[in-house]
């Protein structure tokens, strides 16, 4: 774990534009930095480009056809567009809106899926260790240790989502991207995930897209507010919520649109 801040920003976004069709930008000239071992929340009304920006951070947005990208994102000083996507996604993991454990794999296999999918051969004891660590880190170990070799689909939604987090952190990534990870979950499962994120930031840098303002206020350290593809305002969450500089941010926080 490298906590000495040679620079305390992990991801440096520089003048990023992303367009799904020519001249129609989903992300427009966004510059920001994501700080190490903190939770950064990206907020904004639906369609504001927050998910696209998040996906840009590990180049998942390139899965759509005809995508155009301008600008740059640096991961520890190195452009992510010059890395292989394989290496990038290994260092920048992702958790999705809906829990999506692989239905053809057991819980155990799901956790080490990143390794098996990447053709990385591990010894049995290494695998066991990774699985136990990852599941302990997401507070799922005690609940599933008796059923590691069952399919993950019998788990509850919240458990499935924690399994997906475990799958993403098994690689020990630098950054974990979370795309509205609690939007499909009930309040109890949501609060468990939120507690989990608070724990995880000790080891990882988290970027969280959410449309739930109170969630952002509860758990994030930094906030970014996006509107119509632009980054309107960003800064420490406390400051942004209590003293927004931009009128659009204020309008959003007071529920004028959303």
């Amino acid at each position: 774990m490298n906590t000495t801040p040679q620079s305390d920003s992990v991801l440096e976004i520089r003048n990023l534009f992303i367009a799904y069709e020519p001249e129609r930008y989903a992300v427009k000239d966004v510059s920001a930095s994501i700080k190490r071992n903190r939770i950064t929340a990206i907020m904004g009304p639906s369609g504001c480009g927050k998910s696209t920006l998040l996906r840009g951070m590990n180049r998942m947005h390139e899965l759509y056809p005809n995508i155009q990208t301008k600008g740059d994102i640096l991961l520890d000083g190195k452009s992510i567009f010059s890395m292989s996507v394989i290496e990038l996604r290994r260092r920048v993991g992702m958790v999705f809106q809906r829990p999506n454990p692989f239905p053809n794999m057991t819980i155990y296999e799901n956790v080490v899926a990143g390794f098996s999918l990447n053709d990385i051969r591990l010894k049995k004891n290494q695998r066991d260790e990774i699985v136990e660590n990852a599941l302990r880190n997401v507070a799922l170990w005690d609940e599933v240790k008796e059923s590691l070799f069952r399919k993950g689909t019998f788990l509850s939604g919240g458990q499935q989502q924690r399994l997906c987090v475990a799958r993403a952190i098994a690689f020990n990534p630098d950054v974990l991207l979370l795309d509205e990870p609690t939007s499909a979950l009930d309040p109890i499962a949501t609060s468990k995930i939120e507690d989990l994120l608070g724990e995880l930031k000790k080891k990882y840098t988290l970027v969280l897209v959410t449309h739930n303002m109170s969630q952002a206020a509860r758990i994030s350290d930094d906030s970014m507010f996006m509107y119509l593809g632009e980054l309107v305002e960003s800064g420490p969450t406390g400051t942004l919520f209590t003293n927004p500089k931009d009128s659009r941010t204020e309008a959003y926080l007071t529920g004028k649109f959303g």
Partner: protein
Amino acid sequence: MHIELTDNIKKRNRTNGRFRYLVIAGSVITVIPIFLIVGNLAVKGYRQINLAFFTQPAPDTFQAMMAASAGEVIPGGIANGLTGSLLMVLLASLFAIPLGLMTGIYIYENSTKRYARFIRSLTEILQGVPSIILGIIAYIWVVKNITRGYSALAGSVSLTIMMLPLIIRSTEETMRMIPLSIREAAFALGTPYHKMIYKILIPVSFSGLATGVLLALSRILGETAPLMLTALGSPAISFDVTRPVSAVPLLIWDFYNDPNMVSLVWSASLFLMVFVLSMNLLARSVASKHKYI
């Protein structure tokens, strides 16, 4: 814990790229035959296609042999096949279209009942029955017991049994795409059941139903095997349903078995293929253009 990530990214990217080429290559191989077949038939078959090809019945083998040995175009055409195909397909449509539509609607409307689901399973089985077996059936039922000899009627019966499941399935599937709210809106206005079917269900799904019928027609137009056992073929133009008639695919079979008529078989095959494929394309364009639902 630290795990050495042995990096084989280059190799994995290479296999990834190679697999993509494999997929493209396989797809190209899949479609090559269609170009070969269409090209082959077009080049060899177009010469014989003229007015006489459509207006004159097939030549006998002696005429064909004389023409072939003199290096001339074989006289005659496929008129007896055209009329025979037309007769049998019309007759089959007369039975199969109304019956198929009604059964399809019945299954859709009663899809929660066991009986309707059973009928649907029977339809699926019927759809999988090889066409030659339907030839045997029409032979036993019609040739042996009704017309006491090969007949156009027997041919139509085998084609009817082929068409029925195709129309039933497409009807049911089309109806299932109609949003439930449309039906509910009709009932909410106090529409009686039969009016809902005639004034809502059928008009709303009309293009889908038409597509199903056209696709079924394009299937039976090219069908040969059951007709060999039922309609048999005839050198003359005939509209008598109790007598043997020819059909375009039956003529192709006859021409194929007669070494003197090789050039006619190219033309007849070209014609049949173009006709069936245009019907197919027509069906698909109806489906894509007139979409209410």
